[in-house]
């Protein structure tokens, strides 16, 4: 019995053959880690972790509507994401308003999604996949559109990078310096919407945070250098997704638990390292006081 469970979670029979099969997924996972790790640092700076969750639920509603109507699921999730991102961006300019807007929007999106899935008569695995991620070997990830969308997001972030950092840290000072703060906010929300929509294809709506928040949060525990935070965050996110896919290969469990476990472990390690450093930093100050 116990052996069976382990066999389901970890199995490396015929690993070489499987690896070839999931080549696309691995590429998709690496790209996803890259874009998720980068945008995650802005999600943290702009305090949008909860918004990511809200966008993901609406994206789920869009995807399940598409599934029911028999149209492209990726397109459905994209529409849901963008709509949610724009609503949150427009209604929740201030952090306090934003959280209540998200709190109202999220259950509505989830409810819609549940409704559409209940009406859907197709394969159950498709339903489950939208919420908790794909089973790697079964569904092919649409690598092409995923890579394309990610490239658009990364390019746009590179263009608005400096003003976005400035506006995220201190919108008033940035505006005084001539940064178009009012435009940057919705632009960023759309980029976030795009990222959520592609992430859902792999890790599912419920677990998007593991990709867009955890790696950046972990990186910020160990360094305050903006360059190092971005590099570490990307490294953590790529390790989580690619590592998750590799571990999930043989088993019959979705990849998301592997991804979330790896990213959570990295976060715990970073907390420990950051905590140890803080203690070292405090000690001499106490001694000299």
């Amino acid at each position, binding site marked *: 019995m116990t052996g069976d469970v382990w066999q389901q979670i970890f199995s490396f029979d015929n690993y070489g053959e499987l690896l070839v099969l999931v080549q696309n997924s691995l590429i998709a996972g690496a790209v996803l880690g890259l874009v998720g790790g980068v945008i995650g*640092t802005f999600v*943290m*700076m702009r*305090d949008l972790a909860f918004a990511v969750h809200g966008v993901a639920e609406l994206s789920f509603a869009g995807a399940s509507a598409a599934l029911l109507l028999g149209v492209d699921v990726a397109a459905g999730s994209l529409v849901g994401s963008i709509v949610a991102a724009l609503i949150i961006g427009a209604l929740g300019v201030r952090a306090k308003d934003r959280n209540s807007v998200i709190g109202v929007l999220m259950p509505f999106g989830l409810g819609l999604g549940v409704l559409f899935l209940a009406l859907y008569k197709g394969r159950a695995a498709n339903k489950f996949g939208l919420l908790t991620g794909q089973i790697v070997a079964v569904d092919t990830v649409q690598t092409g559109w995923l890579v394309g969308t990610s490239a658009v997001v990364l390019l746009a972030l*590179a*263009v*608005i*990078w*400096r*003003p976005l*950092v*400035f506006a995220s*840290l*201190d919108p*008033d*000072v*940035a*505006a*005084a*310096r*001539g*940064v178009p703060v009012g435009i940057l906010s919705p632009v960023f929300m759309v980029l976030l919407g795009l990222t959520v929509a592609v992430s859902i294809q792999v890790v599912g709506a419920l677990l998007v945070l593991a990709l867009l928040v955890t790696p950046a*949060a972990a*990186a*910020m*525990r160990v*360094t*305050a*250098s*903006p360059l190092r*935070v*971005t590099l570490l965050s990307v490294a953590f996110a790529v390790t989580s997704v690619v590592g998750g896919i590799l571990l999930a290969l043989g088993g019959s469990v979705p990849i998301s638990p592997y991804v979330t476990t790896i990213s959570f472990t990295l976060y715990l390690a970073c907390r420990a390292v950051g905590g140890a450093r803080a203690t070292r930093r405090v000690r001499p100050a106490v001694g000299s006081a």
Partner: protein
Amino acid sequence: MSATIGLSGAGLAFGDRVLWQDLDLELGRGEFVAVLGPNGSGKTSFLRVLLGRQQLSSGALLTGGGPLGYIPQHRAVAPQTPLRGRDLIRLGLDGHRWGLPLGTRRIRRRVGELLEAVGAAGYADRPLTLLSGGELQRLRVAQALAADPAVLLCDEPLLSLDLHHQKVVAELVDERRRTHDTTVVFVTHEINPILDMVDRVLYLAQGRFRFGSLAEVMTSASLSDLYGSPVEVARINGRLVVVGAPGAHDHGGETTV
């Protein structure tokens, strides 16, 4: 003394609440103007007008061109913000430009100079989240100076700082004015830390204003007239103390202006 920034016949109202009207002022190069008044009298809105972020209800904003520097009031930085002291200053240099923050030697040197100028070199690489209010405000002064501004607009930059750092930050601003002839507009609750620096005072209250030298504005007669009720202004140990200004001080019960 050519004007750097000014207002002509300016008025600001929100709905039927008039904050101030018929305000004419021209600020010369190197002039230090304190903006005083109770909360809600329109001090911050006045600054936003000068910044071009708030439309006037009437009148016009006169700008002499040249960049504006803006020093906000101290606010703590969000936890885990991935920025250090030098990054904050750098944003003042090129944070408004598109693209990635690629390092150039020129930028690094300039950041180093600004760090030295405000005495912040010692904590340049410390995360912003670990800095004290006074340390952060020094960096924000340097960030504002990075634009090489002709006018420095300061929005209560001393608020929630201890006395020592109030003095340090005020002196940094004043030093910039003396060495570069920069015009300073300084919104504050507390005039005493900048008492020796001020050339003119704009006092906003009750939908009206007084504008003139310290000796003209900060007197019992002038403020009593402005508030329409008896107000006492006294100099005690070199400090200016205002007693009886209605609704003037809703923080800390402090009776000095």
